[in-house]
Each structure stands twice: as C-alpha cells, then as structure tokens.
C-alpha cells in the first residue's frame, strides 16, 4: 500500500516519549503542528532539512508528516483481512501496530494508525500502562474500572496485586510506616480467605533487615527490576484482551506456529538452529538424517542376546545374553562407520545363568548385570567382578541406577524392590509389594519409581494375615474370602507408581496384558510400557492417564523392550517378535519405520545412544547386535562401492569376529 506523497513540510517530530510500548500515536496525531528539530533519538542520524520529502534513514523510505491531514485514510470494505473469515482486519492491524512500536518503528506505527483508522489502544490503556510502569498506583487503580474490570472479584484481585507491589516497594525503600499503612488499608480489606496465608507472608516481610533480604524472601526483584512489567502482565489477566492487547502478542503467535511446525515434523531429530529456521518456509526434517541403516553388526555371542544398554557417555555398549555372558563393546567415536573400531573389550563370564538385564552406573565405572536372582557388579575399566549380591529369591528383572547418584535399585519377581548404595550395600528393601516386578524405572527428577509386573495372589488360607504385609496397592481379592479352592488364575498385571522417597503408592493401575518393559522420558512426564499382546502404552505421569498407544509390532510370548529416542525423546522404538525394529513418532503415534535385517527370532531390546542422537542399537535372538545410523553418514561410502544401503556385504574384520558391512579400507576410496 503506497503512502501518499507527503507535503514539503515533512518535519518529523520527536517530541513524544521514546518508550516504544507507551505513547499512543493518536496523541501525536492530534498535535498537528510540530516543527521541531529533526534530531531523532535512537540514532536516526540523517538530518532532514526543510523541504525534503524523503528521509533515507527511515525504512519506509519516505518522509512522513505528522499532520493527520497528510495521510489519507484508506477505507476498505468488510472487516476481514483476506477472504478467510477468521482473520479480523482490525485485530491484525492492531497487532502489527504493537509489533512496530515494540521494535521502535514509531513512525510506521503512526502512519498505519492514520491510514487504517484503527488505534492500538484507547488512551486510558496507555495511561494505565504508564501509571503502572511509573509507580503511580492510585491513578492506576482508578483506571481499572474504566478498562473493563467490572467483575467485583476481579477488581479485588487486581487491587490486591497493585497493593502488594506498592507495599513491597515501600518496604524496599525502608518506608515501613507507609508500608504498614498500605498493609492495613489496602491489602487486608481486599484479600479473600485464600489470600490470608499470603497476607501473613507479606506481613512477616516487615522483619527483613535490608532490601537484599526482602527481595530474596519475597522472590521479587525490586522496583527497578522487571517486577513492574511483571505486574502489568499479571494484571493483563483481568483486563479484556481486546482492550489491552497482551505484550508481544505477535511474537507469542509466531512461537506457537514454530511449535506447531516442529510438532508436525515427524522425523525431527536435529537441534533447532535459529539461523536455519525462517518464517518464510515451514520446518521439516527429512528422512535422510534418521537412523535407518545398519552400519555395524556385532556377532560374538553364542546364543540369543536379550538386552543392550549404552554407557552414559555413548562410547560403550553392554549386551546381555542367554549364553551366560555379558560383553562390553567399545564403539569408536569416528563419524565414518567404516573407519570406526568396534571391539569387544570385555567378555564377562562369571554368570551361572542367562542374563536378563544390565545397567551402567552414572559415571560408567560400574556395570551391574543380573543373572536369574543374582546381581553382579563389574568394574568396567578392568572387566573384573567386584561383587555378587544374592538378596533376591527370584529372577531380578530390573536394574536402574538412581539419577541422583545415591546408588541403584533392583526389582525382582520375588516382589521386592531393593535400593542399594554405590558400593553395593543394601540401603532399603521394599518387601512384599503387590506385584512381581517385571521391569521398573526411575524418573530423571528422582521423584518417582514406576514398576510393572504380575499381580500376586496371596494364599487364601492365610486370609487377613497374608494381606497384612502387602503394601496397600492390591484390590480386595474377590473370591478367596470363603477359603474354597480357587483354580490358578492368570495373574493380574499392574503398573504401580511409587513416590521414591517415601515408598507410598501414588497410583496402581490394572492392565490387561503382560507388561514387559517400562521406560521414562527425559522430562519425567511419560512412561512407556510394553503391553502384550502387540501394544505399547504411553502413560502420562502428571495426569495419571493413558496418553497414547503404539501398535504395529508383535509381542505375545517374549519379553520385548522399547525405549524413547531422538532429540527430545521424539521417537519411540521397540523390538518385536517378527524380526523388525519399529519406530514411531511419539507425539502423534505415527508408525515411521519398520526396520528389517535381524535374523530369525525376536528383536528383544533396543537402546538409543544417549550422546549420539543419530544412532541406536538393537539385539536379537539371532545372536547379533546391530547398530543403526542415518543414511547420510553411511550412504556416501556405500554408494561409492556400489552396494545398496539395504543389503550390506559382509566382510570379516578379524578382531573378535566383528562384522562390518563393507570392505575395510584405510584411507580414500
């Protein structure tokens, strides 16, 4: 829209305040006669002499007159921006005016107001804003009603907020008597019963010896800080948004759209780079940077591999197998898979039974493995066995190191969860819990422990005595009360959420099928549970409800595990009984990939590399472990050999029979 050519007297006035958010432009419009000097603040340095019409420093490129008569009002039909009825032109224009003002383009904002006839806000609103920012509390309070805060409750709340700020500022300035006045006259009468506690806290602040202490105690950053702005934001809640538009509204909307694009990007697995994201095009990640190709096959185990776990620094991988050994692999850090060294560093052989699970300590110095009911602690630097723990009576199915470094936790089918310290000494034992634990996980914020397992039915003959030991989670058992012989019932599968500190049960949920795996997301919000047959459940731990189900994979007989993966835990991957690895987009449940390659049998477990977000490992009944990566890193090399990415050639490598899918060249190709 072209600005009409201004008159010769294009004197720009700079007499209004240069606080970008304040100062209604309608004020300047009324001051029609300005002919002051043209040195504007904010560094618009080009001098504008009389008679010139263009001012090069203005982004608009044209000089502007402040006379309302020189900008013609453009009147348009209808009220919508485009044809779409959802976009109201007035709202849009006012948002643009606000944004222009925020940035500092006051002239453009004024012109826009003149041309469109819409003004950002009524003068009372800007006055109100000014009052709050300057601390003119009484004036601000008076304006509240005019701004549309008519509901008595809202009025009371708003007055309370203003009164509180006034009080705190007076205290900060050491004007205690005045502060006391405020407390008595303004705060006390206006507080509701729920505010009583706050009132007490505020009165106790009188005792503060110096402003520093006051600020700390009230978590308030002082009159000169952002607290006044914060107050404005808080008061925003009470004022209708069309009267006073929330601060930086456009920016909020654009952030929402960025979030939406990010949410829609199914293969999103890259760090958000501000320089690469643009408002002009939607953000999408393509499949090429998603790990879909096997780059390494580790084949040393002589029997089924049941579990894998990455060390926290992403350089080592530990695997647990039916052949009664665990192997610690070193996965080299080179980006090029072919030049990488994957060596079986240690083979841990002292297990009398097949291994079920394993876990690295936080600093990766200890690896804990479980073989039936035994727990073994290994030194990962030397491969030596440190300790064997025999406290459990049945298979240990879960080993988790606590994120706060206080030790680790073991869960077992003997209905015990035991907390150990870093040396392997028993700290605490939760006996006779309601389930035989088949897996357990601890939230990264160390608040909760989520355990899944098979319900336990106490022998009916013992009656109430049998139930006395059981933690309060199991429901009243229906038909055992009368002591008659009840046939073996299939166990009732449950998920139980415990508060880690107290051991109290927060939630106990009955589930229909066998539960074989539980993992928790990085933000401690979601739990991922494998649920036979053929389902994976995502549970929301804050709202205590099922958030999503993932389907497609097969599970019915075996213990299959899954995990979160990718940046922000954007993906869910799982093993399956049909030889494939399944990948879903976590937030939408879309099945993204079905990755084949493993041999006959189930893919038992998967683990995402915690450091390299483009790599994960899977292990299977075919005795191998596969490392998967993005085609981008592997593709160049594979294409150079004319080998298709999906059918890697096998070449022996010599060291520990680790097979790499292409010829081992040192140097160029």
């Amino acid at each position, binding site marked *: 829209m072209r600005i009409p050519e201004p008159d010769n007297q294009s004197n720009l006035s700079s007499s209004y305040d240069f606080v970008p958010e304040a100062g209604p432009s309608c004020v300047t419009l009324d001051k029609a006669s300005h002919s002051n000097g043209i040195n504007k603040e904010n560094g618009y340095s080009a001098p504008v002499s009389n008679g010139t019409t263009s001012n090069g420093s203005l982004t608009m490129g044209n000089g502007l007159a402040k006379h309302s008569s020189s900008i013609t009002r453009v009147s348009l039909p209808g009220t919508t921006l485009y044809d779409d009825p959802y976009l109201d032109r007035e709202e849009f224009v006012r948002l643009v005016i606000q944004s222009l003002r925020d940035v500092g383009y006051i002239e453009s904002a004024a012109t826009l107001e003149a041309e469109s006839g819409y003004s950002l806000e009524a003068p009372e609103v800007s006055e109100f804003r000014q009052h709050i920012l300057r601390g003119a509390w009484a004036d601000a309070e008076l304006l509240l009603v005019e701004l549309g805060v008519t509901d008595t409750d809202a009025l009371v709340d708003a007055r309370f907020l203003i009164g509180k700020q006034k009080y705190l500022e007076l205290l900060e300035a050491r004007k205690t008597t005045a502060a006391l006045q405020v407390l008595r006259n303004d705060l006390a009468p206006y507080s509701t019963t729920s505010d009583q506690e706050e009132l007490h806290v505020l009165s106790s602040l009188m005792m503060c010896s110096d402003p520093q202490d006051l600020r700390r105690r009230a978590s308030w950053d002082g009159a000169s800080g952002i607290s006044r702005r914060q107050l404005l934001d808080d008061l925003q809640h009470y004022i209708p948004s069309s009267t006073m538009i929330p601060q930086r509204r456009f920016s909020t909307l654009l952030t929402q759209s960025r979030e939406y694009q990010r949410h829609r990007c199914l293969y999103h697995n890259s760090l958000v780079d501000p320089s690469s994201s643009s408002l002009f095009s939607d953000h999408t990640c393509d499949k090429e940077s998603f790990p879909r190709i096997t780059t390494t096959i580790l084949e040393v185990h002589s029997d089924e591999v049941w579990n894998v776990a990455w060390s926290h620094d992403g350089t080592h991988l530990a695997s647990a197998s039916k052949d009664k050994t665990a192997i610690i692999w070193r996965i080299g850090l080179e980006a090029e898979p072919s030049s990488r060294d994957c060596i079986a560093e240690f083979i841990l052989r002292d297990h009398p039974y097949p291994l079920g699970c394993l876990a690295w300590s936080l600093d990766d110095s200890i690896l804990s493995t479980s073989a039936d009911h035994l727990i073994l602690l290994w030194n990962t630097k030397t491969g030596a066995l440190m300790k064997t723990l025999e406290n459990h009576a049945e298979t240990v199915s879960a080993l988790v190191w606590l994120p706060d470094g206080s030790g680790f936790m073991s869960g077992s089918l003997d209905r015990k969860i035991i907390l150990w310290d870093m040396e392997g000494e028993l700290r605490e034992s939760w006996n006779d819990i309601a389930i035989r634990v088949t897996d357990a996980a601890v939230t990264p914020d160390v608040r909760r422990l989520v355990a899944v397992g098979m319900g336990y039915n106490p*022998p009916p003959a013992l009656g109430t005595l049998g139930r006395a030991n059981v933690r309060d989670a199991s429901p009243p058992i229906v038909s055992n009360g009368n002591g008659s012989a009840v*046939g073996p019932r299939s166990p009732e599968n449950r998920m139980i959420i415990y508060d880690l500190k107290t051991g109290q049960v927060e939630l106990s949920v009955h589930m229909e099928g066998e539960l074989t795996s539980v993992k928790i997301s990085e933000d401690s919000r979601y739990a991922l549970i494998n649920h036979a047959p053929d389902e994976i459940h995502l549970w929301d731990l804050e709202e205590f409800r099922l958030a999503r189900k993932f389907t497609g994979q097969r599970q019915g007989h075996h*213990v299959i595990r899954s995990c979160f993966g990718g940046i922000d835990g954007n993906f869910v991957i799982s093993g399956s009984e049909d030889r494939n690895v399944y990948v879903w987009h976590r937030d939408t449940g879309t099945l993204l990939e079905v990755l084949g390659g493993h041999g006959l049998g189930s893919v038992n477990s998967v683990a995402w590399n915690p450091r390299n977000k483009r790599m994960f490992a899977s292990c299977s009944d075919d005795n191998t472990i596969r490392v998967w990566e993005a085609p981008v890193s592997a593709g160049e090399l594979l294409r150079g050999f004319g080998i298709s990415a999906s059918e890697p050639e096998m070449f022996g490598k010599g060291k520990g029979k680790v097979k790499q899918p292409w010829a081992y060249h040192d140097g160029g190709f």
Partner: protein
Amino acid sequence: MGMKYRRYLAGERIYGCSKCKTHLATIHSMISRAFNGQHGRAYLFDGVVNVIEGEPNDRQMTTGNHTVRDIFCVKCATVLGWKYDRAYEQSQQYKEGKYILERNLLVDVQ
C-alpha cells in the same frame, strides 16, 4: 527362543522343584496320588508349568506300554518326572497329555 520369565502359580498349595523352588503345579491341577516313579511316590497332574519336555520314548510300565517324554526343570534342568504322550491300553488313555511329578523331587513352595 526369546526371553521369558518363569511362570508363577497361585493357589492353596504350590509344588515346586526341590532344587531351585521353581513353581511347577498347584494342588488344584492334581488328579491322582497313586503313582510310583523311580524315586517312590509320584503324582499325576493335569497341567504343569516351567518344564521342558524331552524326546518321546516308548516305555514298558507296570500298567502297560506308553510313549512318554521326560520333563526337566527350566531353571536347573533336573529330571522331575515325565509326560504321557500316548497310552496303548484302552484303560490307560486317561493319562494322555498329563504329567507325572515325583514326590521326592517336589517341595512345597509358598
């Protein structure tokens, strides 16, 4: 094939492997106590868990010719008894598909 946890039973009386206490059967699935095995008394059960079955063999027993498989504990692999595949006498056919567990190799588990 794949990882599986051992089964756990529920009931008034649970019999388990004497060596490793693995659950095997409950009294609810017991059919008869009037059997004899190589180690003395033996019980006939309808359903038994946590056992691996061996190869079928023909054996002459006091009651006639039968095809049986030895059964082993999944955890400690001790022979616990056998399973009847086929009975060649008409009167013995009720045993087909059922399991014999030797009393001496069992222990009460609770």
